[in-house]
């Protein structure tokens, strides 16, 4: 399935951004593909903004709320976020659960199994690389087709009583809209203190969006929810309809402008000069971050 490949694509982007100094990720070296990769500056910048903004929301969640918290990452793939956070925040208060398709889980668990440095971060653990399964105090990796969640629920290790954020970093967008929304609704119904953090493309109807769909289709990649959710307003309505009471949504042009501190902006501008700003604005306008929460989570986060 070409959707499995999207993890490799994202990994290469993160590797390039890490190598150039946009992102600090001491753990990506354990999941590297064999060749050294340098992505164009515009892609490095976009990878940085994507990583920074998701980190920002999750860090707020993990530091502002007392007690144990849970992050469920859909289609996590080779993402190293769990390790980056576990290295810096009190372990006993965080539980990461990563769900992905079996081949991706196998690959990730195999990589972790080889690295003492990573195993040491997990606490007590049980690992079965052939099953693509890891269970530990801090991080679970479980093979699961997330489309089954509305019918079959989550694995037992997930705790519905904990404040939880579900992360979809370009994952739900590959599903049919009704499948994606069923999953969101299921989480809203089963978790009392819940937020969904979604990063995905928008604006599929303009000429850039059409070109994007066509280019990705030639690789067998289809952004199925893009047809239904064209604008920021569409996304807000979508999550309101899915039962979430507080929704923040913005495109990456706005996000870079309003969220990223000036000092960070200056730092990354020095790494690589962007030769074409119009191109950056055009690309960034076509990606959004949506953070939809229950009232209970929103109040605790004091946003």
């Amino acid at each position, binding site marked *: 399935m070409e959707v499995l490949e*999207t993890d490799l*694509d*994202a990994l290469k*982007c993160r590797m390039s951004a890490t190598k150039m100094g946009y992102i600090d990720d001491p753990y990506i070296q354990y999941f590297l593909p064999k060749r050294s990769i340098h*992505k*164009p*500056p515009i*892609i490095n910048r*976009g*990878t940085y903004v*994507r990583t920074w903004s998701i980190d920002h929301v999750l860090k707020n969640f993990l530091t502002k709320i007392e007690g144990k918290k849970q992050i469920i990452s859909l289609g996590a793939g080779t993402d190293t976020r769990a390790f980056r956070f576990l290295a810096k925040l009190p372990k006993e208060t965080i539980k990461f659960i990563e769900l992905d398709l079996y081949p991706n889980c196998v690959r990730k668990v195999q990589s972790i199994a080889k690295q003492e440095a990573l195993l040491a971060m997990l606490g007590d653990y049980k690992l079965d690389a052939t099953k693509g399964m890891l269970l530990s105090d801090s991080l679970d990796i479980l093979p699961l087709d997330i489309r089954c969640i509305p019918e079959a629920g989550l694995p037992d290790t997930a705790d519905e009583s904990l404040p939880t954020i579900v992360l979809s970093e*370009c994952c739900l967008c590959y599903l049919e809209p009704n499948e994606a929304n069923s999953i969101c609704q299921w989480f809203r119904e089963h978790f009392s203190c819940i937020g969904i953090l979604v990063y995905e*493309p928008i604006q599929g109807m*303009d*000429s*850039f969006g*059409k*070109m*994007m769909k*066509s*280019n*990705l289709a*030639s*690789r067998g*990649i289809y952004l199925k929810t893009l047809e239904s959710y064209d604008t920021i307003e569409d996304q807000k309505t979508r999550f309101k309809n899915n039962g979430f009471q507080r929704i923040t949504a913005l495109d990456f042009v706005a996000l870079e402008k309003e969220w990223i501190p000036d000092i960070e902006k200056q730092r990354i*501008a020095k790494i*690589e*000069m*962007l*030769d*074409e*700003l*119009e*191109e950056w604005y*055009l*690309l960034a306008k076509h*990606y959004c971050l949506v953070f939809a929460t229950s009232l209970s989570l929103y109040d605790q986060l004091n946003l």
Partner: protein
Amino acid sequence: MLNLDQILERLYNKQIIAEPVIAYLCSLAKEVLIQESNVVRLCTPITVVGDIHGQFEDLLEIFRIGGPCPFTNYIFLGDYVDRGYYSVETITLLLCLKLRYPKRITLLRGNHESRGITQTYGFYSECLRKYGSANVWKQITDIFDFLTLAATIDDSIFCVHGGLSPSIQHIDQIVVLDRFREFPHEGAMADLVWSDPDPSIQEFSLSPRGAGYSFGEVIVSKFLHENNMDHILRAHQLCSEGYQILFEKKLSTVWSAPNYCYRCANLASILQIDTDKSRFFNVFDAAPNQENPYVEPTAKATEYFL
């Protein structure tokens, strides 16, 4: 001695040119380009072309739309290489045309005609991929040092890749610059290829690009008045409609790379100026995509966030 017409025919047929032939073309080109002033004087009728960025199929389309060189006079405003996958073919064809018809085609230097930028934005990698070494990249980037910086058309239109500089009030100041070198990080030579007009300001401001300046209408009016000209033509900025006219028609941007980076889905244009000085933006869309045996199909290679 090699026959320029034969080399041109190979290029029009999208056949790759051997390294020794490129070395030969570069040595000839140096002799021609070195004689040009920093500001070349041109006359109408002429067709003005903006950024190409290695989109060779679209360059061929430009010759189909605007008419073949030498039957149409051309001025190219720079940025021949980087981003697209056929920078080598693009710059080689243009240098060859300059050698064959030196009075019919003028090539300005853009900010991408630079050693540093081409190492980040694709030309260097393309040369490595197509020739197995950096020799061709070195020969061509050495030639970039000889490309001229600006031009005038009918003594009334000023042409440059980027825009204006706080260090330059009069065109004569450009004429006396030493252009035969890599771009310095700042100063007039850098400004001319990096600056952008900005309708929201009046004078100069630091550029968000990190090089050159943003400049407003007051600066444009002053420059035109000081130099007894009535229009500035430049490229350098992506235009979704292929061109943009600003400051009550005192300045135009021409952008000639359609569907830039095979991703932006923008239109492109060439500007046709007739002997009566009338300006017509001939707008066009991307050429039908044809596969190059050396490079994977472009749709699949186009990058997004997944």
